[in-house]
């Protein structure tokens, strides 16, 4: 299962074109027809629960609404509302401030998960010698992914709270006199939880990339006189780029759209784009929420485009 999970990010091999032998033509056609039927359930699920909802979100974002209902009449007002006050200069408008705050979490979370994820994957892939041990350590890193995120957030309360373990220990050691406020329900706890929950999304693809590296290349680098650092930087890191890219896209998009971690770990006090959408939904302001969702989707797409551009650019150099 570990190998399946580890290589889960492999792209599908293009199906080889069927040979055009006359006797097999009917069979090939039958197989092709069968393929449509076999792929249909997947296609229908994505159509009904992903593509149509996204299309409806875009459509409804241009609709009017009042306190009671949404009205199918074209308007740009929802988008005007999203960017209200953004062009007047002076203080930042709410939307920009929210995105800036989310961007801060993105950068901090990304830098930390990448550093930790790469180091952990590097240790397991290159320093652990037996395959069985590698599998066990890899699984240790992934098992928490299959348990509840909310529980893993709540679990920080007894550690970071005002009378939590961290404060108690620091006071016991005489390092502080009064408990440190703001360990919990602060930017700090949000970033901590983001790292806690999302590092796995870096470890898995980077580990997968590392396991595909031909060990002879490392040996060649060593034989050519490279120091371990040089091997790491000039051989391993470049070959891990696909894994790093996949992990980065995963982590960044997860943080961008997050509202649960920011909500629970921020004590429902810190703004995030996802939270804005959630609140508007609860007030039944669907077109406003839809407009915000479209803007968020656009921001995520720009981010992914920038990331893929960055990688392709590097490949060309």
């Amino acid at each position, binding site marked *: 299962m570990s190998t399946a999970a580890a290589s889960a990010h492999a792209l599908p*091999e293009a199906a080889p074109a069927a040979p055009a032998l006359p006797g097999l033509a009917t069979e090939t056609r039958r197989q092709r027809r069968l393929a449509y039927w*076999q792929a249909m359930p997947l296609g229908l699920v994505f159509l009904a629960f992903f593509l149509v909802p996204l299309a409806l979100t875009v459509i409804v974002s241009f609709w009017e609404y009042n306190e009671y209902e949404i009205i199918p009449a074209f308007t740009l007002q929802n988008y005007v509302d999203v960017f209200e006050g953004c062009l007047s200069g002076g203080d930042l408008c709410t939307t920009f401030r929210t995105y800036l705050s989310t961007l801060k979490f993105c950068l901090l979370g990304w830098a930390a998960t990448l550093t930790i994820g790469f180091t952990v994957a590097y240790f397991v892939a290159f320093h652990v010698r037996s395959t069985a041990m590698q599998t066990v350590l890899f699984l240790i890193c992934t098992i928490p992914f299959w348990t509840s995120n909310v529980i893993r957030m709540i679990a920080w309360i007894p550690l970071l709270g005002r009378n939590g373990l961290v404060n108690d220990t620091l006071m016991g050691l005489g390092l502080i006199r009064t408990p440190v406020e703001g360990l919990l329900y602060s930017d700090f706890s949000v970033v901590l939880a983001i790292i806690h929950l999302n590092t796995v999304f870096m470890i898995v693809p980077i580990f997968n990339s590392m396991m595909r590296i031909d060990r002879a290349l490392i040996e060649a680098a060593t034989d050519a006189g490279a120091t371990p650092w040089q091997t790491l930087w000039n051989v391993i890191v470049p070959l891990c780029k696909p894994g790093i890219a996949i992990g980065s896209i995963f982590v960044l998009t997860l943080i961008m759209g997050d509202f649960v971690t920011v909500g*629970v770990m921020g004590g429902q006090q810190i703004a995030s784009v996802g939270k804005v959408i959630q609140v508007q939904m609860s007030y039944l302001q669907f077109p406003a929420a839809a407009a915000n969702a479209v803007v968020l989707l656009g921001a995520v797409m720009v981010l992914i485009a920038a990331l893929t551009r960055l990688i392709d650019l590097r490949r060309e150099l």
Partner: protein
Amino acid sequence: MSRDGPRPFSFYVLAAFFGLFVLFLYGPTLTILVLSFQGPQGGLTFPMNGVSTYWFSRLWAGLGVVDIWAAFRRSFALGLVVMALTVTIALFAGLAFRKGFLGQTPLFYTAVASLIVPSIVVSLGIGLEFRLIDEGIKAFAAWTGWGFLQDHGTVMGLFTSALGAHLTWTLPFGLLIMFAVFNRFNPAYEEAARDLGATGPQSLRHVVVPIILPSLVGVALFGFTLSWDELARTSQAIGGRNTLPLELQGLTTTVTTPEIYALGTVTTGVSLLVIGLAFGTFLLIQRRRARRVTLPGT
């Protein structure tokens, strides 16, 4: 980097880092596991005020206004349905991608997009979709005047909108695993089956599925656990009756006793049980296979 010889100094540094990471990963969860056995007088933080199962019995009796066990049952049932559908749909989609078909690239990218598009957006979209369906049904009821449609509430629910929301999250994982599986699958086994006169369904049932069974267990594990813990995509697409993670999220702001830790322990216990079951099945299959290989006569 060699596989023998003394360990370099960097090994010990990295091993220590790995150890700290595992502590960071598991430490907090272990803390609430311990604190859920807090004595009746104990609070949300250390020290332990005695050891008891008091908070579990409180939990068993129910958490105030929230019917936590109904949510528990709902989430469990939904998890099982999502698991079954994920395995079935992903398996057949994997078979289809193997053969190749027109439109496979767009479908693949749709699956990847479904994984990457922020959950709140997917959730909002599904919520909107079902609300618009409700509006449509109500308008239709007013237009036709058919009696049985007049009391229409909502089509939104556990096994409609929430099920769909969960599938948009579990199916991409299932599909990616199936790709990994079929990339390594040797088609010679199927050809041999066909040469021996097996029909398509026969070769699927007796050749392909037994060979890839361990991976299907893996897909099932993803299907259940991801559904069991899913929160963001369900949030706007569930209607009135919540799943367990949604109730849990609500409780984080209202419950101030170790009951919430007890609930956490129980929820994590279910997850771990399922993970253990999956690995147990996986090892059992491997062992059986090993035995068959060593005894070719049987």
